[in-house]
């Protein structure tokens, strides 16, 4: 019984930690992420002819850019930072999208939340049973015997 009580407390603690940790981490990632438009850059003759830096690949996404060596001049739709997709691919980098972290963070918060609630509920239940058990064993309850 005591082991189960400790285990439930540990589960609840880890659940709470997961919720708090993922919330703090997400706010840090969100502050770090920037709106990025991946582009396939044109060569200078083509860029001059069309008046564009390159062809956009996909829509602008909030991305965490650790290495800014692939950033090129100019701004895209909604002021997005332009990033050379070829350079990213050549260096084998695949920057993380904020929505992916959001998705994973949401799962962690969900699982952590459930773990906290279940752990806390089991711990409280065991605590109540232990108290009732103690009360049941006290001399005052033996009055009718």
């Amino acid at each position, binding site marked *: 019984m005591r082991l189960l009580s400790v285990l439930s407390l540990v589960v609840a603690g880890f659940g709470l930690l997961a919720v708090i940790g993922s919330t703090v981490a997400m706010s840090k990632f969100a502050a770090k992420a920037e709106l990025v438009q991946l582009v396939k850059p044109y060569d200078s003759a083509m860029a001059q002819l069309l008046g564009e830096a390159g062809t956009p690949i996909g829509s602008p996404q909030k991305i965490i850019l650790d290495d800014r060596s692939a950033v090129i001049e100019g701004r895209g739709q909604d002021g997005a930072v332009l990033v050379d997709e070829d350079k990213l691919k050549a260096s084998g980098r695949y920057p993380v999208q904020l*929505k992916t972290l959001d998705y994973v963070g949401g799962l962690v918060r969900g699982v952590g939340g459930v773990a906290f609630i279940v752990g806390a509920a089991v711990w409280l239940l065991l605590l109540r049973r232990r108290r009732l058990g103690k009360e049941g064993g006290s001399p005052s309850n033996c009055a009718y015997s």
Partner: protein
Amino acid sequence: MRKTLYFLAALVALNGAAMAQTKTFKIGDAGGMKASQMFQFESDADFENFTGVTHKLGGQFKFDPKARTGSGEIEVDIASIDTGIPMRNEHLRSPMWFDAAKFPTAKFETTSVKHKKGDTYTVSGKLTVHGVTRNITTEADIRYIAESAATRKAMFKGDICRITCDFKVNLKDYGVMIPDMAAGKVSPSINLRLDVFAYTG
């Protein structure tokens, strides 16, 4: 009778003059232009956005820069679409998804091209994906650039027509079902984008 003949002759002459403005543009590999031709799709799912890109396009486009009308067809090689992850490419080509072995190309054939304003046109046509053909209407940008030193410097051959358009399609409408294990990672509707430089050669 003579008046009718004159009228018909004038009509034929006018028609001939109008036809003379229509230029035929090729779409496909043209040396330096190859990398600029692009078909891409974007999946906007809960987990992430990802794109698939190919430069293997073919077809032709007839366009009258003065009358601002045209027609054409574009074919896209499905097997060459690259999503950046080899395993994902294989999945997309597999019979469970686009079945590239059975349906190697996607095709768009215009049925009407109407000028809206500037370089913007309303384009209607038949889109065939995964062997299923459906009518769609979208807005397209068609920019005509006459041959010049600048176009030649950019490796273009002859006059060029840059065509860009986006359209959203529901995969289900084209018989492409998302397996349960991919739900959340691939969106049920994807955005298709064509960015084509057609040339007279």
